[in-house]
């Protein structure tokens, strides 16, 4: 069985079983999240970590938007700020017509069941002293009006949905493997029939053979329940597989956003090209011949970003203008946006 792993997949005829319309479910505009840097015993503010520094994008109902970037690029902060787990510094997040930024606590709480989160580390995100049944049933208790009998039935149904044995409902998280624990986290996230789930590196802590199981489960649930995902990951290969559109982040900014095959087949931003080039290809024949773009240096600190384009310190193509002016977002092709002075439209 030869695995043709490195070959490019055909760009056309991407058929997906689920319908993705043009209806926008989540709309993010000019979102900023700055964390204050304080000093001294009076916690005097001496600066700010500009984790997310003005991003705008839409997520359509039923689609998966992939969000890729390196550590410190702000991708997790976007997810958390969108769900109002962090208070936005500036900007707006409209979820199905409701402005979430500044929404009153009661109204926000009524919206919460519709937007959920799956976390990276299935060891840290499940309470070790709660049984699986109470972990998965907790959202039902908080937001539902069901009897304990109904809850029990729903928990068993949910465990079945995510491929766990419902008779294990009274076990504790440590009795499960990493992949199974992530299934528990997914069951909890879908318990209240949400529309939208932020998946924050859901497979990063899992073994290779288990990653595919969890991704397949997430795709299955998406088809079954009509879910919309924001899939945050640093694994470009997996994002290419699961996402409909992909946004590339660097230092708090979105550098490029396009349909998945456009982004991988025709990347316009030098950072996107470098990122793709850095990802090793599991094929020794391809690896032996391909020319790699090796970026120099490290990602700058988000508390002290360079003037101009955030990528200018590492960009192989940077010109004077890149050090002075922040590139404005523009469409270089239908649905293909990029923030770079040099990208040609």
């Amino acid at each position, binding site marked *: *069985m*030869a*695995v*043709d*792993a*490195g070959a490019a*997949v*055909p760009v056309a*005829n*991407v*058929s*997906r*079983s689920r319908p993705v319309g043009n209806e926008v479910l989540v709309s993010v505009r000019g979102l900023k999240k700055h964390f204050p840097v304080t000093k001294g015993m009076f916690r005097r503010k001496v600066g700010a970590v500009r984790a997310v520094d003005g991003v705008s994008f839409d997520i359509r109902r039923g689609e998966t938007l992939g969000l890729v970037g*390196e*550590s410190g690029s702000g991708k997790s902060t976007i997810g958390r700020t969108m769900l109002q787990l962090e208070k936005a510094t500036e900007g707006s997040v409209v979820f199905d017509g409701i402005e979430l930024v500044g929404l009153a606590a009661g109204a926000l709480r009524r919206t919460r069941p519709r937007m959920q989160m799956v976390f990276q580390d299935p060891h840290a995100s499940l309470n070790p002293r709660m049984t699986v049944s109470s972990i998965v049933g907790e959202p039902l208790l908080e937001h539902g009006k069901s009897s304990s009998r109904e809850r029990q039935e729903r928990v068993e149904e949910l465990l079945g949905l995510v491929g766990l044995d419902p008779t294990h409902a009274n076990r504790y998280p440590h009795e499960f*493997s990493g*992949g*199974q624990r992530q299934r528990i986290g997914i069951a909890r996230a879908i318990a209240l029939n949400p529309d939208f789930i932020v998946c924050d590196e859901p497979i990063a802590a899992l*073994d*290779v*053979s*288990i*990653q*595919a*199981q969890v*991704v*397949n489960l997430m*795709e*299955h649930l998406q088809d079954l329940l009509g879910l919309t995902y924001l899939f945050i990951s*640093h*694994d*470009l*290969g*997996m994002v*290419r*597989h*699961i996402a409909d559109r992909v946004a590339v982040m660097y230092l708090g900014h979105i550098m490029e956003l396009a349909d998945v*095959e456009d982004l991988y087949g025709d990347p316009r931003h030098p950072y996107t090209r*470098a*990122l793709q*080039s*850095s*990802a*090793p*290809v*599991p*094929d*020794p*024949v*391809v*690896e*032996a011949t391909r020319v*790699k773009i*090796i*970026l*120099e240096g*490290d*990602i700058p600190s988000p508390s002290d970003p360079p003037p101009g384009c955030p990528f200018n310190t590492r960009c192989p193509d940077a010109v004077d203008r890149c050090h002075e002016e922040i590139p404005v977002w523009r469409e270089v092709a239908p649905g293909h946006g990029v923030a770079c002075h040099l990208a040609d439209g």
Partner: protein
Amino acid sequence: MNSPQPVLQVSDLTTRFNMEDGTVHAVNGVSFDLADGEVVGIVGESGSGKSVSMMSLLRLIPMPPGEIVGGEAIFEDADLLSMGLDDLRKVRGGRIGFIFQDPMTSLNPVLTVGYQITESLKVHQPGRASELRERALDLLKLVGIPSPEQRLQSFPHELSGGMRQRVMIAVALACRPRILVADEPTTALDVTIQAQILELVKDLREKLGMAVIWITHDLGVVAGLVDRVLVMYGGQIVEEAPVDEFYAEPRHPYSQGLLASLPSAAMPGQRLVNIVGQPPDLRAPPTSCSFAPRCPHVFDRCLQENPTLVQVSATRRLACWLDSGRDGPNHGR
């Protein structure tokens, strides 16, 4: 199967951990050779025994509860597993260098980078302070650290993750080792930084001509770096092949499943191929094939006997009853 005189010959290495709730069979009879200047990739998932087997070679596992039950590791005409501790200390960090996964926890946070590099030089190749400093400086230049003079005075927390890993490599290379063992050195790094480190290691290997054992779970990294692949599962090597042959035609069902489950192997819009089930429980003694519960080709013998690693072609070894060229029909691909 390698060039005439291997630099390292490991045979039947077996490591167990005697825990309160039973014995963990972490490494079960691992045997392989490493040729001078060769780069070998050890691929496996967490719990496959890839790190423990390499740590066992230098007796770096905590003992107890760890116990090296048996085996031999011949390096420069001596057995690493039975030699005295004083002799072993001369090998560790001297003739065999080690790089660990997380540079933040393997560097001492209260000592300067310069001190940590010269520390191993002092032990293995003593010299005057000014000479040592000079060599530390050369090493920092070698691993591509900008403004090395200042960096000698830096503490680990003042460096980024990529820079710390470069320091780790400098420490490991300080005494010009014949073998460099790298345990997932790029797993904690971002891809653009990983690419830098991989290029650096390839470059250094050519410059210094050392053999490298690269432990990883990343099949992409292995493809571009190594000469030969060893796949571990359940504490055993289940397949060994030259890198080109391995990717062109993996023969162990686990290797096949692993390569097929990569997202790059799936067609758009299709589900990924996955390996069903969970990783093995190493508390069970290895009396049957540890992959049998997840294997699509499992048959009676797999559950009764543990297949040993045997030579199936001039370049390949395999531990599988189905396709060992000894028994049964060669089907399943």
